């Protein structure tokens, strides 16, 4: 049953050290505010999963929150590398990061299998690639009807899934639209789900086939306007492309990353304050 709580309370209650955690959002509706709160509360040894670990996981990895990452594409979209992710994989900084690598199709199927309460996903995948010999989590099964050999991979069933959405009503029913990625599957695959939203409304007024997550599959709902920035929220605000470019410079060196993290995340009380500090910095930079 969804409870309306503050984001700090939701993370404190539902996310524990060592948890298997999904923060999903495919370019759109990425739960940045929740990621920052995880850093602020100093969670450790998290096992993270995400199809596209972009800036949000670069921040969590650089901040030392993660022991393991399951993913299918790790980059700064349209810009280049994730420097904190690469530093962790290539140099073990700030600590070693175990990785479990898959393809998009695999992870999407694995979330579906998790939501369907199945132990593994079956798909036509990986033929001819190095994946099978490199990773024990990719195996083959034989179709009992046709004899076809198909790929089998473990389903994804997070302890906690966190997503950002456009709206929720008083009861905590959640509505999202636009590019939906794997958010619905990731929520239904998880033991607990935390949702941050742009807006709290009296009624969702959603058409019959809209993507609505009923309040009773959501553990906590938090009102966090602009909580997906620098990604975007369809109908609310645009992607902050300039920040993705800035991140390349901020994250390139350990010192500049640590200074940014302290000033913008660790030394701010919440996402509202983060947004104010961001705005001041950006105004200062553009004035120079």
């Amino acid at each position, binding site marked *: 049953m969804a409870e309306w709580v503050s984001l700090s309370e939701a993370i404190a209650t539902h996310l524990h050290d060592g948890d298997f955690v999904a923060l999903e959002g*495919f370019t759109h509706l990425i739960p940045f505010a929740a990621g920052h709160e995880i850093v602020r509360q100093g969670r450790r040894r998290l096992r993270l999963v995400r199809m596209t670990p972009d800036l949000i996981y670069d921040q969590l990895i650089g901040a030392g929150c993660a022991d393991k990452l399951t993913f299918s594409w790790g980059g700064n979209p349209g810009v280049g590398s994730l420097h904190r992710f690469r530093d962790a994989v290539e140099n073990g900084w700030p600590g070693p990061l175990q990785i479990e*690598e*898959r393809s*998009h199709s695999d992870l999407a199927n694995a979330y579906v299998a998790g939501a369907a309460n199945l132990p593994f996903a079956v798909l036509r995948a990986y033929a*001819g*690639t190095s994946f099978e010999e490199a990773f024990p989590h990719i195996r083959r099964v034989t179709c009992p009807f046709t004899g076809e050999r198909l790929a089998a991979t473990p389903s994804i069933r997070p302890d906690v899934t966190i997503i950002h959405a456009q709206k929720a009503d008083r009861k905590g029913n959640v509505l999202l639209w636009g590019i939906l990625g794997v958010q619905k599957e990731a929520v239904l695959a998880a033991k607990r789900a935390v949702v941050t939203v742009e807006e709290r409304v009296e009624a969702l007024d959603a058409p019959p086939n809209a993507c609505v997550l009923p309040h009773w599959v959501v553990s906590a709902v938090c009102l966090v306007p602009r909580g997906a920035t620098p990604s975007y929220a369809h109908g609310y605000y645009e992607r902050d492309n300039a920040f993705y470019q800035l991140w390349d410079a901020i994250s390139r060196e350990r010192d500049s990353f640590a200074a940014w993290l302290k000033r913008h995340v660790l030394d701010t009380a919440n996402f509202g304050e983060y947004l104010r500090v961001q705005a001041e910095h950006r105004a200062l930079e553009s004035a120079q």
Partner: protein
Amino acid sequence: MTMAGFTSDEMMTVAAARRLGNGAVCFVGIGLPSTAANLARLLHAPDVVLIYESGPIGAKPAVLPLSIGDGILAETADTVVSTPEIFRYWLQGERIDVGFLGAAQIDRFANINTTVIGDYQRPTVRLPGAGGAPEISTSAMEVLVIAKQSKRSFVERLDFITSAGFLGGGNARERAGIRGRGPVAVITDLCVLRPEEGSRELVVASIHPGVTREKIHANTGWDVRFDRDCGETDAPTEVELVVLRDLLARTAAAHGKVGNAA
């Protein structure tokens, strides 16, 4: 590098766009493939159906998206479906005519590496990883690859095969049980390569204007061969150049940066 009024990047994008037929259903990678596919849509292929892995089907963006899930893709699409649906019903369902891919590294049999350079556990360079490419390269009916050519990208041996081309050549791809036909052309800033009949080794099918065979040799990590009929790629027409430059200028104005980045 400007030569005779166009750059080698423009030649590459135009040559790639020409390969995409009108009405084709195309699964588009971000970056160079997205630029070429949208150029085709604005030129000779107005009815091409562009599918992006984030969920948009039939996207018709006025400017190039910076990321695979930009809002403009959703707003201009015929429909937007979930990411699992894209991979399960549309790609694995074999409704894609052409998969359009980029490549960090490619070998003589058009196998692609976007995972690591060096040992997997101790990589020299950690690349972004697979994304949608492994299944695009096997489930799409055919594949186009667009990549800048150099000794670093066109290599003798891949450290990791992320996406299958023709594996060890010959009929190795079919023997591995792969259903799609695989790469039909690799378009670079120097030339167009295609798999040779029988061996399935990439051979140079046409050389872009102003490029020499020596330059292609110098930028290929294996002893690349030239097709017996190898000629010169048609230079970009004025219309092709105007439409491409206009698209990139609109994109730059919208995003505040040049939009041809991979």
